[in-house]
């Protein structure tokens, strides 16, 4: 533990400090957005969005190298792809109920596959694993700034529209009868989910991001009676898992993303069994 603290404050280990700050900042939007993803049961949609993000990253790398658009940072490609995917996925889930899972599943796979094809067509070596499973060595000071901005955005929007999001998730038909544009709030929720996913891919990667989005709220739901409680608990649970996972992965020289996921997933399953037995 003391060694870890020393390591965090060692000036040569800037990346580790960044990773811890990132984990802390990320937990705020993860806890809030994750709670909504869990109660609205849109984990599958979030999965599709996160895999489409890979398509955007591929496109950005392709344009950067092949077309000379050096300003087109992968993060812009990722944000663009995420927002487009969120709107498409949202509209499909609202208007194509019968074919919903097939369409979403197709988007999921096509997003991922086109990312790989675009990277294939781009000269140079890219470490795919770092996008898929996260790589804390890639976290920069700018990423921290982005995540801090996202926190402010997410917190602001949810404080302002808390009652509306609550109602849309609980009973959207009734909410629309009260004169509220439920489609708008549903799409806004998906877009915020998309942005959250993009910025947190750095820590846990595209494939694992969904687990970190849904496991803390799932644990929180054992103890929370109201929505805001579930969010608050989720934030702290998420914080605990990311920090514990980062510390563990550093001490044992393991990949950080998978360590965080295995840790939180195991904790969830154990708690689930305990709760089942106690009942």
């Amino acid at each position, binding site marked *: 533990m003391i060694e870890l603290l020393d390591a965090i404050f060692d000036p040569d280990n800037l990346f580790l400090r960044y990773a811890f700050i990132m984990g802390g900042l990320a937990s705020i939007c993860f806890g809030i957005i994750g709670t909504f993803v869990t*109660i609205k*049961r849109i984990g599958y949609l979030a999965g599709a969005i996160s895999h489409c993000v890979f398509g955007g990253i591929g496109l950005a790398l392709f344009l950067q190298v092949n077309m000379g658009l050096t300003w087109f940072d992968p993060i812009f490609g990722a944000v663009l792809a995420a927002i487009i995917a969120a709107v498409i996925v949202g509209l499909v889930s609202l208007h194509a109920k019968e074919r919903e899972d097939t369409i979403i599943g197709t988007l999921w796979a096509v997003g991922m596959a086109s990312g790989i094809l675009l990277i294939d067509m781009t000269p140079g070596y890219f470490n795919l694993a770092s996008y898929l499973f996260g790589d804390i060595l890639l976290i920069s000071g700018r990423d921290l700034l982005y995540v801090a901005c996202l926190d402010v955005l997410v917190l602001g929007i949810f404080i*302002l*529209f*808390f*009652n*509306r999001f*609550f*109602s849309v*998730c*609980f*009973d959207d*038909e*009734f*909410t*629309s*009868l*009260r*004169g*509220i544009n439920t489609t708008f709030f549903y799409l806004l929720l998906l877009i915020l989910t998309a942005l959250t996913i993009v910025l947190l891919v750095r820590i846990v990667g595209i494939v694992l991001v969904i687990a970190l989005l849904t496991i803390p709220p799932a644990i929180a*739901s054992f103890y*929370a*009676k*109201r*929505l805001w*409680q*579930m969010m608050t608990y989720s934030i702290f649970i998420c914080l605990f898992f990311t920090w514990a996972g980062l510390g563990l992965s550093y001490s044992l020289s393991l990949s950080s993303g998978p360590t965080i996921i295995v840790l939180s997933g195991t904790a969830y399953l154990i708690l689930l069994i305990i709760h089942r037995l106690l009942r």
Partner: protein
Amino acid sequence: MFNNHEIILDNVSFAYKQRNILENVNLEVQKGEFASIVGPNGGGKTTLLKLILGLIKPDKGKIRIFDKEPDKIRHRIGYMPQYAHLDMNFPANVMDVVLMGRLGKRNLWFTRKDRAKALEAIDQVGMTGFTKTGFNELSGGQKQRILIARALCSSPDILLLDEPTANVDHETEENLFTILQKLNAKITILLVSHDLGFVSKYVKSVICVNLNVVIHPTTQVNGELIKNIYHGDLKMVRHDHRCSDEGHIHD
């Protein structure tokens, strides 16, 4: 003004996937009505409610509520959906759920007045003291009552209920109808029900929906009528429910 008819459907038709659900429906509902909407499954009961709420638009015909189009007058209608489609693990307490009825286009947060209205509605359905209880800890009948309270706390002039007594026991059903009967003193009530025999003890009229819509005073409900509504022969079981004060005749 219009002649005391709060809800008017004029030659309304609605089809879903090329299948006619409702055909040339004419219906006039008076102020103070307490009617049960009955009919076979898939006969268009819920569709009729959704048309009145403006959630779906008719393919043909005109719907007027207080002389206006349904989606312009929604704030004067209270609606209680079937609770089966709600997520029972949702983290919310009774107050959270009832306050949804106070949502509006303009107010972002709930005020003290909203809370007072919600408390009043909770009292009206006999759930005083349950405000902090988790919604998912309630029994089926209690959930129905809370959803009625949610519909009530916007002070509606019309109350629409979709199967308020689905999955509740007989005693709870009686309780709910006693509450509704009291509310009917001020509010027009339409409800969808499966159990024609039971509701006819309480309601003033029966709206029969099966492609067409016919409204009958409760006194007219008899075996012949029921047979017509559900098309073809039905097994009828005599029980202690009365269709009207005069009773009804079996073949």
